């Protein structure tokens, strides 16, 4: 584990591990850390649009309070003074929670999500909220009702999605870390496209209380960070049982940061599936995977071939289940108790109010997925789509169980290509197909992490490429240990 007391040269670009050490040792004040982020946001956010709201006054005031407590020698939390951004679909009493949608524009959440409350308990500072695809539905953050987010590495390219704002904010040095959410890859894929680290914890490891529900059996909140160690620190802070979420596992918080300090008991078995090595992968993606495999070998891991023939059925399974659950979850947006209510013309009825509020408030991708979900659940179609997809879900999970009997983690690409150009994927299906390597971890409830692993030279732009490690459900600490070892190897290989 790294130990830092010296102040970072550039606090906005520092890791959490470095920042919290420096702030605790008082070689850097929390106010200086927040100011560095605010300056970077002021300079870069107008072009990138990562942040929808910035809570400058509250952040500085909270930072000053933490500095005051430190000066009196009072006890502060493990994240004291660390500025963190949160995705727009995570409830916070600061500002508004809009989930990237006009339907919820101006919504004033009466409570903080459990993950946010736990960050605050440890002294973290909520810097602002980041833009995302509407209701987390998208892989490019182009479907954000408050404007698209641009990739900090190439302004004409997408940052990925749906947590594009969070990934762009961290990659651009606007903040050391951000929370995102991952239903089919929405933390990992933008992390890969922006060259940062993104963790999807095992399903049920982190409370979903306060996460605007998209697909309740697939959603997880996850950290986007500059290092595996930082992801471990944040997971430790936000994970663990929650009385407010009946789907949250009955486990205490993870102890991942401590686990990183210990060498593994036995050499790692790293599984690689030929189904992840498709000829359709971009050459830079194939090269990054090759480099990662070599790094594992150099570190003493054994590479085990695993067979995942159901990989290509993941997209169909995912889009049936996710759309079905979304159509149910988004039924609450009816214009009655909160959110957008259409102004009715004389003679219009309650049903008109529902239809007009929803159609005016929801963007095209959300409407498409609600329609798809309603269709696959409707009489005459539920059996061949929804019920069949539930059975394939079990087959996919069992296939991973068999693979994990032979390996500790599975290594593969995060996405088949680097970031595409804005507007390039106007066909919805082609955007869905880009999720091929990420959806199966959500279907099976696995933990999974994306790390930067290489670069692609595309049309004069130098774009980040990520690789993904997947681990068995509730093995998040082991996954992070393997990821830390791979991260060291990749950096030593000259990434």
């Amino acid at each position, binding site marked *: 584990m790294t130990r830092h007391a010296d102040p970072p040269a550039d606090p906005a670009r520092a890791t959490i591990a470095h920042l919290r050490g420096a702030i605790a040792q008082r070689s850097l004040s929390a106010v200086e850390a927040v100011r560095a982020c605010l300056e970077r946001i002021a300079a870069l956010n107008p072009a990138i649009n990562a942040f929808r709201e910035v809570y400058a006054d509250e952040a500085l005031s909270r930072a000053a309070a933490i500095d005051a407590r430190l000066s009196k020698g009072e006890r502060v939390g493990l994240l004291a003074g660390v500025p963190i951004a949160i995705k727009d679909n995570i409830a916070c009493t600061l500002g508004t929670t809009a989930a990237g949608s006009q339907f919820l524009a101006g919504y004033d959440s009466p409570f903080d999500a459990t993950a946010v409350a736990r960050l605050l308990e440890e002294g973290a500072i909520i810097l602002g909220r980041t833009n995302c695809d509407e209701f987390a539905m998208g892989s490019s953050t182009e479907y954000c009702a408050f404007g698209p987010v641009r990739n900090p590495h190439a302004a004409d390219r997408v940052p990925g999605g749906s947590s594009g704002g969070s990934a762009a904010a961290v990659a651009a040095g606007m903040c050391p870390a951000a929370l995102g959410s991952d239903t089919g890859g929405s933390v990992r894929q933008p992390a890969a496209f922006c060259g940062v680290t993104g963790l999807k914890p095992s399903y*049920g490891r982190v409370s979903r209380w306060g996460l605007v529900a998209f697909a309740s059996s697939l959603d997880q909140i996850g950290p986007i960070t500059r290092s595996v160690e930082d992801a471990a620190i944040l997971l430790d802070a936000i994970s663990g049982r929650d009385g407010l979420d009946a789907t949250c596992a009955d486990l205490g918080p993870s102890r991942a940061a401590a686990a990183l300090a210990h060498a593994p008991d036995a050499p790692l078995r790293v599984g690689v599936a030929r189904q992840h090595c498709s000829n359709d992968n971009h050459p830079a993606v194939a090269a990054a995977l090759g480099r990662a495999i070599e790094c594992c070998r150099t570190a003493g891991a054994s590479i085990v071939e695993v067979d995942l023939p159901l990989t290509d059925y993941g997209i169909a399974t995912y889009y049936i289940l996710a759309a079905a659950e979304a159509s149910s979850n988004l039924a609450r947006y009816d214009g009655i108790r909160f959110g957008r209510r259409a102004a009715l013309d004389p003679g219009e009825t309650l049903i008109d109010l529902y239809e007009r509020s929803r159609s005016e408030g929801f963007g095209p991708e959300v409407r498409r997925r609600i329609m798809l979900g309603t269709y696959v659940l409707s009489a005459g179609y539920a059996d061949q789509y929804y019920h069949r997809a539930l059975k394939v879900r079990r087959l996919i999970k069992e296939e991973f169980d068999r693979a994990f009997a032979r390996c500790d983690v599975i290594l593969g690409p995060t996405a088949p290509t680097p970031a595409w150009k804005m507007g390039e994927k106007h066909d919805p299906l082609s955007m869905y197909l880009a999720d091929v390597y990420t959806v199966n971890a959500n279907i099976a409830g696995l933990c999974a992490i994306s790390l930067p692993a290489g670069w692609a030279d595309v049309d004069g732009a130098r774009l980040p490429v990520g690789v993904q490690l997947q681990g068995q459900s509730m093995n998040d600490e082991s996954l992070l240990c393997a990821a830390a070892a791979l991260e060291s190897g990749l950096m030593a290989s000259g990434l």
Partner: protein
Amino acid sequence: MESVLHFPVEASFNVDIVRHIARLARLRLTDADVNAMVHDLGSIVSHLDRLRALNVDGVAPLAHPLPIVNRLDPDDPSPSLPIESVMRNAPSVEGPFIAVPKVLAEGGSS
């Protein structure tokens, strides 16, 4: 209450199916929206149809990745959200109530 419309299983996506689903989903689509949906959903559903190639006989459905059964909490009363914090997001308020359009027609029937 809308009648349940039954379409042949092999029906390709068409305007009637889209309009029926939109009614179920409480969405109002323009004619242009409907045509776009026919195209988009038709293409997506063709991809979803590939699951038909898999043999799922005897496979139990998996609705949830974790083997959790209903977790009951002790029946201890605790404070609810303050009413004001909930009502401040309501589109239209009359006294302690959220105002809504008439739900029932004259005579009490819907």
